[in-house]
């Protein structure tokens, strides 16, 4: 028997180790509660050292795409999702802290994280990343040193560097389907300045949230996700 539930495909952000989607439990839980079948993929699983642009990583994912009713992406995963819009043309799209285009400030901050990882200093890379994902005005958590992990460093450096010169404006503006950007109001990384949206798209600033609005304001994010799903999906 075929599964008739709408299929939500989620592209994960840069994670040092794949966590099977736990990072996004707020979002996936809301989508499942709505009636979606949710697949979360490790965006970096297809990363190759030769890749320098998000579009390359997106192209490697394209042949693996099955039918998608809702395309979701977070951070790098959101950039990959945006790069896939012209080919995949999903019925609806949700992007969480997903940069459409980088500016100098964003590129510098991501470079710092990437460079530390490239040098093999995973602890410092994660500590800086921890600060950057914390909302402005909020004390960042203290990061304990972690053991060296070559693979984690490769994922962070390679993943972050794909975003340094990203510009997916054209792909987003030409997307005719419904699209919702969720972005933290107090994010130190991706802000509304890094988004593009057509007139029929939505940009939702999550009050008080940083780069991870799904963690900072889960109820707010869940409300908007549920509303968006009701408006655009048939459970």
């Amino acid at each position, binding site marked *: 028997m075929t599964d008739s539930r709408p299929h939500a495909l989620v592209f994960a952000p840069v994670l040092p180790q794949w966590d099977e989607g736990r990072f996004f439990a707020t979002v996936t839980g809301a989508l499942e509660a709505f009636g979606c079948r949710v697949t979360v993929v490790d965006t970096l699983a297809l990363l190759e050292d030769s890749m320098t642009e998000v579009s390359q990583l997106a192209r490697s994912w394209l042949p693996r795409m099955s039918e998608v009713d809702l395309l979701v992406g977070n951070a790098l995963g959101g950039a990959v999702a945006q790069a896939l819009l012209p080919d995949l043309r999903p019925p609806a799209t949700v992007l969480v802290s997903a940069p459409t285009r980088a500016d100098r400030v964003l590129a510098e901050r991501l470079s710092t994280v990437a460079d530390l990882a490239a040098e093999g200093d995973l602890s410092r890379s994660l500590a800086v990343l921890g600060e950057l994902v914390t909302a402005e005005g909020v004390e960042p958590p203290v990061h304990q040193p972690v053991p060296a992990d070559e693979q984690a460093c490769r994922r962070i450096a390679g993943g972050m560097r794909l975003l340094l010169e990203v510009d997916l404006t054209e792909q987003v503006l030409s997307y005719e389907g419904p699209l919702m950007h969720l972005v933290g109001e107090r994010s130190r990384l991706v802000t509304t300045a890094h988004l593009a949206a057509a007139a029929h798209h939505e940009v939702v600033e999550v009050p008080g949230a940083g780069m991870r609005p799904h963690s900072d304001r889960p109820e707010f994010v869940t409300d908007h996700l549920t*509303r968006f799903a009701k*408006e655009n999906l048939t459970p």
Partner: protein
Amino acid sequence: MSLVNIDVTLRDGGYRNRFEFDLDYARTHARLSVAAGFDWVEIAYRKGSFKPVADLGLTGRGDDSYIAAIAEEIGPEHVGLILHPRNIDAGDLPAMHRAGARLVRVCVPAGDPGPALDTVRQAKEVGFTVCVNLTRVSQLPARKVVEVAAAAADAGTDVVYLADSNGSLLPAHTARLATLVKSVVPGEVGLHAHNNLGLAMSNAMAAVDAGATWMDSSVLGMGKGPGNLVAEQWIAYLDRIGGDRYDLGTMLHLADLLGRSVPESAPSLPLPDLVLGHFDLSVEERGSIAHSDHRQSVHAARALAGAAAG
């Protein structure tokens, strides 16, 4: 209080644009309507309105393919149509059900309810949730309302609707009728309001206070004449008094979309319709009261109403 809300925009609003909503708009409208919290979307007349009109648009015909398209979009459990029994034949109700409609509303003229009640019986046999709409209810004596409502209940209807086709009801009258019908039928009571006098909201509140549990409204009030109970105001009201299943944001988004997509949806209160509502005259009398001088319109309407009363 558990209210059942029907969005009648695509059907009643069709009087404004010759029922010419395009399918893409209808799909989106229906989806957003359900997302905003409507239980049912009345998507069309089946085979035409009260008076035959040539070249009816999509939502005046209610074809099977249209029903199927909307049912695919929002699920059959949200799809309803309305019909005048004289417009359909024995094959229509089964075909509508097969296509994906689950609610049918049967317009019942009080003067000759027999054929309509046969339609109600058939609709129940087919498996529909059935509403009976007592049209032009403001012109009916209370005894007649009771008689037809009871007969409709005996025929198996789930809901008896007070259809204020003339937009003439006052809140106290609405409450009396709702109480009356509620006392003689085992099922539910609903209100289909028109806003000729700007009283649709007050009448809706009065009806609910008197026990009505089904309510029609249309986005931007888009409906015949001055339109219906304004959906976004009604949903805002329900949300304000504690309804937890409505999404006002989606509701307003839909209102904005309708306004941008369908120019005929712009709210209006034509003065002749106010006169018709005030004197409890049907829209068919519009020509009889038409006059460039509104004083003459009122005079003519008063004379017509007096003649009817006499």
